[in-house]
């Protein structure tokens, strides 16, 4: 058994454990042991602001992705096989476009002279163009778009396993469609909700390109602090300390989530 997994373990060791360990080591060691980088994170309030903003945006994105993704997954589950393939294909399709291209596409849609503002002005709904991008709003919209598949797919996988008989049983006992949905279907789909939400939330914590391009310079998320710190302090340690704190937050989230559902469900979608 060990012989079978050892190549995979070696790859993980070389490509994940060693670099992450090296990263963590640099954050506490530079010509001697130092907690300087962590002291800075704790004492300068720009770090607090960025972490707070990052969690705020991630939460907002997760809620929006759930609100938008749940009906999509529900529809894909309810319709015939052929239609569900079409729906899922539409969900997954943007995966094949790079994040960068999609950020620019949103720019073309949302900016002052963009499609949406021009259309609204043509209809005379607005006098002045709306500020839809170069702020947190634009960042959230594009991020939700990018992360939506990570919500829809686990939801769909969970819903697929809910036996249809249960809904019929609920109906035969006199439950209205709404009643059986809220009392039977929704509770059974909650593991999917938790799995999808965890994926989206955790991925969003590390977003870089989207806030960089669409945030207008004001939406400074944690990943941007990482890159900025390399420039500013000329030491990888200053950046890796930020990355380590982010990594620890992610591990903490996974730990809390694992108290409620098995992690296999989140990661492997069993």
């Amino acid at each position, binding site marked *: 058994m060990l012989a079978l997994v050892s190549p995979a373990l070696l790859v993980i060791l070389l490509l994940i454990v060693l670099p992450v360990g090296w990263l963590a080591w640099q954050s506490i060691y530079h010509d001697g042991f130092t907690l300087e980088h962590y002291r800075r994170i704790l004492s300068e309030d*720009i770090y607090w602001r960025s972490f707070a903003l990052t969690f705020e945006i991630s939460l907002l994105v997760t809620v929006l992705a759930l609100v938008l993704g749940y009906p999509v997954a529900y529809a894909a589950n309810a319709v015939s096989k052929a239609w569900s393939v079409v729906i899922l294909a539409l969900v997954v399709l943007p995966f094949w476009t790079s994040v960068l291209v999609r950020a620019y596409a949103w720019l073309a849609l949302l900016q002052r002279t963009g499609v949406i503002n021009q259309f609204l002005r043509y209809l005379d709904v607005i006098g002045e163009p709306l500020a839809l991008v*170069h702020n947190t709003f634009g960042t959230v919209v594009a991020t939700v778009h990018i992360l939506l598949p990570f919500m829809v797919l686990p939801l769909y996988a969970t819903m697929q396993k809910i036996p249809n008989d249960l809904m019929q049983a609920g109906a035969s006992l006199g439950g209205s469609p709404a009643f059986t949905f809220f009392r039977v279907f929704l509770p059974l789909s909650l593991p999917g909700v938790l799995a999808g939400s965890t994926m989206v939330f955790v991925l969003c914590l590390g977003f870089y390109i989207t806030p960089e391009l669409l945030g207008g310079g004001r939406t400074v998320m944690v990943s941007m602090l990482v890159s900025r710190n390399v420039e500013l302090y000329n030491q990888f340690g200053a950046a890796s300390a930020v990355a380590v704190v982010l990594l620890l937050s992610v591990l903490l989230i996974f730990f809390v989530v694992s108290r409620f559902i098995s992690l296999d469900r989140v990661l492997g979608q069993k």
Partner: protein
Amino acid sequence: MTTKLGFMFGHALLGASLGAFGLTCTTADAAEQITFVSQGGAYQQAQTVAILDPSAKKLGITINQDSIPDAWPAIKTQVGSGKPIWDVVDTPTGYCLRGGEQGLIEKLDFSKIPNAAAMPEAYRNPYSVSYEFYSSVLAFSQKTFPKDAPNSWADFWDVKKFPGRRALRNHPIATLEAALMADGVAPDKLYPLDVDRAFKKLEEIKPSITVWWTSGAQSAQLLNDGEVDMEMAWNGRVSAVAKEGAKVAFTYNQGILQSTSLCILKGAPNLETAVKFLNEAVDPVHQANLPLNIDYGPGNPKAFDTGVIKPERAAQLPSEPANAAKQALMSYAWWSSPAGEAAEKRWAAFMQK
């Protein structure tokens, strides 16, 4: 003349030995080449035509090229490893200075670099030589301002007289200089920067800034799409947008004249050839050929005396003497001083407030 003859003799000998002994003279061969690194794209292509190929031919050396958008982390890693593979790097002057202070960059012996020794002192420092100039200028939309366009940083700050959306670079370098000029400091009296005063002035304009841009491409897109009516941008980016047909223009008045410089990595594998190349690369004629291929000014001002650059072309360039006189020459020495580094750190707090 003797050196050239000697060199040609060496070259002939090398050829003969190659013929006679096959592939045994790798050390002699290695001495005749260098690895040169710049930032890639159209900019590096223009250098290849104007400077690199002619220099290689004249010196009889091979110039291997590499490119990287931001050389600084790589310089640190390569020199840190003790075995750098690059020789000469073209990078913003501040990095050459900072690298020199941190022992990552070779100190230059200007007696071996006569072309650089002849340049004004402000155009070189112990570790590097100016290679090309660009400028952070005030650019504006001619659609919004068909006449009476903003012409100074004071105008940029005047949101009543010049209404419109604005963008600045999300970086303190050149932005603090602009703020001080807007507050009435003369372009030649900027350094050492009054950092408190600059940030105070920036707080004033902050609510009117729509976008704080991070890349040159982004600044070009903002101007091209009419997303902003005026912004600080690099002159080459603005003229590229104008060439594409957008109604945009810029002024060199109160521009901040910046440069990239050539420097040599500490422990470079081909140090001697690298020094020879450095001298050749800032030769006035090669330098004069650069602006014929791209919108950047020569690092060596003597290029304007060669007759290679026509007067109408010279007038468009940031380092042309009359244009340079209207601008502030950036002090990289100040920016790599402790006060400059502190100002850079303060920027992040300013942006997130």
